[in-house]
């Protein structure tokens, strides 16, 4: 948990900072999915690219909803929590992708990312002191649970996977 944030006192975080943290978590995930989609397009993997763009849209929607809520409660008050203080809370790690990954592998990577975000907010909700912050983190945890269900649903819809592609001879490094 501590390796996911830097210079943030989660136990004593205020409601404003908690909302800013939540917005940044979604922003980071959105940016990562965009990078992954770009990488997949560059490496001629349109199926995985399409899925990552789908996830990007979900994270962007979630981010803008949280940002609107923050504005409603705190207006333009300056942000104390910065993007540099968080590390891959919901964003899938860079090593989750491969040039020749299947759609199922892309979905699995996304499920792992949603699971770790769920675990982060669950641990944060237990740690915080203020009731309203705890409510926010609990709410976010439940949203991550919904995202997990959404990804699982997509996985279940996939046909059974055949043997892995042998791409040993394919040129992937540019």
């Amino acid at each position, binding site marked *: 948990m501590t*390796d*996911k944030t*830097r210079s943030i006192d989660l136990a004593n975080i205020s409601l404003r900072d908690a909302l800013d943290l939540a917005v940044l978590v979604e922003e980071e995930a959105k940016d990562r999915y965009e*990078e*992954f989609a*770009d*990488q*997949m397009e*560059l*490496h001629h993997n349109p199926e995985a690219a399409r899925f990552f763009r789908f996830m990007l849209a979900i994270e962007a929607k979630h981010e803008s909803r949280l940002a609107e809520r923050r504005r409603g409660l705190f207006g333009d008050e300056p942000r104390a929590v*910065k*993007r*540099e203080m968080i*590390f*891959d809370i919901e964003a899938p*790690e*860079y*090593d*989750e*992708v*491969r*040039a020749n*990954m299947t759609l199922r592998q892309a979905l699995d990577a996304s499920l792992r990312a949603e699971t770790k975000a769920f675990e982060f907010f669950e641990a944060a909700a237990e740690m915080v002191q203020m009731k309203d912050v705890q409510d926010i983190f609990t709410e976010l945890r439940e949203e991550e649970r919904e995202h997990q269900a959404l990804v699982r649903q997509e996985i279940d819809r996939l046909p059974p996977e055949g043997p892995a592609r042998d791409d040993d001879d394919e040129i*992937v*490094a*540019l």
Partner: protein
Amino acid sequence: MTTSNAPLPTYQAKDYKSELKPIWCPGCGDFGVVQAIYRALAAIGRPPHEIAFVSGIGCSSRIPGYTTAYGFNSVHGRALPIAQGIKIASPELLVLVAGGDGDGFSIGGGHVAHAVRRNTDITYIVMDNQIYGLTKGQLSPTSPKGLHTVTSEYGSLEEAVNPLLYVLAYGANFVAQGTPADMAGLAEVIEAAIRFPGFSFVNVQSPCVTFGEDDQQVKNHRATMQSLAKLGHDPTDRLAAMGLAQKYGKELHTGVFYKNPDPPPTMNALIKERQQVLSEKAPPRSRIFDRFLQT
């Protein structure tokens, strides 16, 4: 003269990210390294136009193009001399050097020792993937003995160069190691290296996802890495650092191996001092001109 009360601009990691999209293989460790560099630069807070980023040739040497700093994608193995020249000519610039293990310890290997002993205030970040990835997977100086590659069908017969021990032996005053498996820790050591006055060296274990060994990937780093701080290592003890550095290739230690608590003067400081002494001893211009006319 009027003074402005406007607050100084602050910079975010995204301010150092260029429009150019990285073309590394998906899953490459270098994606994490460049993110850590953006974050370290944001923490330092210098504007992009006050930063010069020099590299050699190789996958990791693409990094200057992915930042908004001044970039110089130079000649294979020659990033260090170019960076030193930039720093000596423009001391006000923050100078970073990036490259791979092949660029730094094979073709450019001879330059490392001199960059260390010259102690120019630059930060050298090596993305050590233990293979030549850009040219499709040949043995590099840090490839482990026994590695099977396209140029070593029966396994490498050579011992690997140990970059940590190499720079420590030549007297480097700041030596650290990181991995993209620990982004927070990596950003922290890069920031500490940049802040250190003098030559600083960061070895980043950045696995090659296409030609690297399966058991050397980032996932494996997460399971095996050991933080030097948590091990209770004293980073002011050079001999202890050398002892730990000998485990390179067998154990993955992250954090600061050595940081000289009493950093010696940098090359720029020595040059300035020498210029001061010489200018004090120099005769007045008129006398120089008279002497010139007499001869």
